[in-house]
């Protein structure tokens, strides 16, 4: 089981890196925001796996918060774009 968890953590770690690469590469703000969203999702996954690994269910609360609140930033960015804010790319 430990191996499975380790592998999954490595996979998700790589996923984090890839998402970050997209943040850097852009090219436009929406691309970056999407990558940020993905980043948050991967964090939820990592937290879930970590909860299993440590056998501490309290970590799930963090996952709930991300699941429930994480998309707010994206909505903020979208609102910015729709109100005519520059995409800055």
């Amino acid at each position, binding site marked *: 089981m430990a191996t499975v968890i380790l592998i999954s953590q490595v996979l998700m770690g790589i996923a984090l890196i890839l998402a970050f690469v997209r943040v850097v590469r852009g090219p436009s703000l929406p691309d970056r925001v999407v990558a940020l969203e993905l980043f948050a999702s991967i964090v939820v996954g990592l937290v879930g796996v*970590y909860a299993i*690994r*440590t056998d*501490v269910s*309290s*970590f799930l609360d963090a996952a709930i918060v991300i699941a429930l609140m994480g998309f707010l930033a994206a909505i903020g960015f979208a609102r910015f774009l729709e109100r005519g804010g520059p995409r800055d790319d």
Partner: protein
Amino acid sequence: MEPVMAVAVGLLYAAAIFLMLRRSIVKLVIGLILLSNAANLLIFTTAGMTRGAPPLIPEGLSAPLGPVADPLPQAVVLTAIVIAFGVLAFAVVLIRRAYEIVKADDLDKMKETDT
């Protein structure tokens, strides 16, 4: 893990200071955000980092079963995070108002009050 974290926190401080040395107010405020995060991490790291043992006591017990992470730095950092949020929110709005009034993002154009 602490050595890695130490280096990371050092880099965070460096990035923050670098940003604060720019002329753009936006960069300045982003630098401030990084800086306060860096300080929080410094507290967290210096006190020692523990894996998988949050300072929570299982129901029905009066003390944790094994050693847990030091809760005090966590409380301190939590307070610091919220304080920093308030302060930075103020700072963010301040640069906006300053920009509206001074009509420049350039800090070099905001030196009338000094000399």
